[in-house]
């Protein structure tokens, strides 16, 4: 025989899954939402997305090559692409491009690489960068172009109030009639409202969810628990006091869909057992409702997820999987 025999321990076969397959699967799931954002927000969306993805890739490559002197080409695994896309989805389409680069620098350089690179970050890079940009550039990050009106226009896009801002006003003033300004549920589902690029078309996001479930990239536990919690809690609130918007509108508005399907399900920052994931999802849902209702910001999803990211290690150590032969799940 020409070559030497290879020796290693079992197993000697592999199921074929890989980091690339999962990351690029997420990218494919994001395509419907991406196309919707181009349709509703025009050239601005294209520019912001492109700059975000390219910056994220460049920063990860540069940090690996020059700071860490790591010979492996980590950008090939697709995680930087996903971060780039998700970061873009959190931004308004008329944001100056240099701010996008700053956001990418924070997301990849600070949140991901300083903690150790892929698999080691404590917080979701795209969300942490969004929070950073919100605090650093409050005006640009809270001026939302209105969907569908500005295809070829970028910087001078017509801006307006988002559904969440309207809901916030209603709560602050106690005036139920303000809720009449809200778009219909159908409009919010399909996406002709204001907001950040990725969050407007709930239908596209749901398509992405179905795709990821079918390809077994994520499981149902986190998205369903978040959406169900928000639906139930806001439903109760709406019954008690009509100044709170209806649960259907709450679920379809703002970053809830985007967060529930793509941000909270990020592997690295979410718990690893089904029980832990359900607890995580319920807590995110509750925090989102609390922040949306009582907080200063109209949107609570990103902060809720970031807060729960910090709890993920604790959830992981207390929510052990059900061991074979034991009665209960959380053995110590």
């Amino acid at each position: 025989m020409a070559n030497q025999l290879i020796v290693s321990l079992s197993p000697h076969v592999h199921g074929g899954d890989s980091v690339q397959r999962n990351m690029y699967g997420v990218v494919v799931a994001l395509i419907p939402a991406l196309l919707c954002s181009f349709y509703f927000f025009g050239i601005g969306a294209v520019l912001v997305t492109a700059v975000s993805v390219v910056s994220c890739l460049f920063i990860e490559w540069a940090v690996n090559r020059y700071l860490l002197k790591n010979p492996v080409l980590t950008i090939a695994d697709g995680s930087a692409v996903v971060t780039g896309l998700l970061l873009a989805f959190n931004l308004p389409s008329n944001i100056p491009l240099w701010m996008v680069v700053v956001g990418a620098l924070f997301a990849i350089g600070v949140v991901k690489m300083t903690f150790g690179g892929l698999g080691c970050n404590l917080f979701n890079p795209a969300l942490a960068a969004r929070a950073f940009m919100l605090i650093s550039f409050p005006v640009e990050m809270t001026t939302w172009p209105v969907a569908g009106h500005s295809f070829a226009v970028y910087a001078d896009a017509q801006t307006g109030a988002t559904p969440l801002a309207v809901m916030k006003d209603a709560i602050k003033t106690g005036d139920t009639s303000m809720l009449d300004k809200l778009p219909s549920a159908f409009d919010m589902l399909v996406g002709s409202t204001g907001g950040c690029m990725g969050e407007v078309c709930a239908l596209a996001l749901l398509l992405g969810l179905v795709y990821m479930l079918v390809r077994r990239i994520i499981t149902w536990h986190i998205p369903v628990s978040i959406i169900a919690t928000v639906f139930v809690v806001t439903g109760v609130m709406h019954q008690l006091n009509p100044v709170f918007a209806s649960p259907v509108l709450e679920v379809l508005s703002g970053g809830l869909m985007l967060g529930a399907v793509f941000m909270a399900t990020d592997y690295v920052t979410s718990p690893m057992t089904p029980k832990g994931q359900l607890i995580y999802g319920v807590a995110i849902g509750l925090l989102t409702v609390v922040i949306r209702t009582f907080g200063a910001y109209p949107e609570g999803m990103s902060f809720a997820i970031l807060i729960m990211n910090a709890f993920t290690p604790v959830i992981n150590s207390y929510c052990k999987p059900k061991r074979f032969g034991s009665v209960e799940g959380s053995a110590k």
Partner: protein
Amino acid sequence: MKTFKIGGVHPEENKLSAAEPIRLAPLPQVAVLPVSQHIGAPAKPVVDKGDKVKVGQVIAEAGGFVSAPVHSSVSGTVLKIDSVIDASGYAKPAVFIQVEGDEWEESIDRSEQLVRLEELPGLTGKDIVAKIQSAGIVGMGGACFPTHVKLSPPPGSKIEWIIINAVECEPYLTADHRLMLEHADEILVGVSLLMRAVDVNKAFVAIENNKPDAIELMTQKARIYPGIEVVPLQVKYPQGGEKQLIDAVVNRQVPAPPALPASVGAVIQNVGTAFAVYQAVMKDKPLFERVVTVTGKSLARPSNLLVRMGTPMSQLIDECGGLPENTGKIIGGGPMMGKALLNVEVPICKGSSGVLIMDEKEARRSRPNPCIRCGKCVAACPMGLEPYLLADGAAHEMWDMLEANAVTSCIECGSCQFTCPSHRPLLDYVRMGKSTVTGIIKSRT
């Protein structure tokens, strides 16, 4: 359809040789019989250089209670007692026999006639166990645990069922499948013998659903055997694991080690062992040959061969078309739990269920990535453990943490490493942690 409740994966089945009837492998020129083909104390040789031996003659006596004798599988002259590299990856003592002719011990009944249990009413459970012990029968599924020990459960344990493992969940292997199709009656008599040995009146024969012909045949034949029920199971790896089998068939979960299946009332035996039991008790034939699946995508003729122990694997591979050019690994057993062999001369032993030829490309591991904390290993683990945590802990020598997280419950099935998208060598580390922690626990007592 029944299955085990926690974890599991679905490797490609690749049952290339499922339709190949069992055929005889040619006798070797020199038979190399290791003295340790079982778990427990190695057997002690009772022959010397120059001795003439016959097929079925004892050439090594059991080294204790948890041990088994070794019988010659060939007739000829003992060449030497030397060492040979076996599936463990190290050289172990073995008896080398120059093969001359094929003369069997006279006591062995070579007739084809089926001997039913009803024909021997005076045969007690104790007689059966004694015959099994002297025939050198060990678990033929690959674990090689001495069968007579398993049939002598600790006093105080209440055995309710025999469960026959005809699942063959490993990809590529088809030996048990063909054995059922061609020797169903003998197997069922063997099952009845096992039932009498532990004094139970109920036995299950568990078969995975990818063998519908075997399920149908066994179900039909089992009708005349009281107390034997054929149970089809969902195809999922590792359904053939002892604990998973008991969970699926009778819905009971064996507690963590040192608990044994006997503590939940079950005794498991591989279907090949049941066949060997029939031959030992009814035909006075000790264990010296077995069915081996020789297979692989690059092999010319994947087959199921009836092989004498001690035959070097090279001979079997030649019988199936020769070793392909770009072979990377030769695996003793299946791809999930088998051992990568060091050379082609490794001899067939009592636990050798298969020889799998894997080409170089498929044999090489991919470069591992960092853990992306996806949790797929946790979902896959059939014992409900957290492989990512155990592997990390073992790599950092955190033995206390490993013990607290039940590393000794790991059955080394490989589902975690199979699933990991980052291609991390999880099981390599977990195994290392498990053996270290087991050693630490033993040293405390």
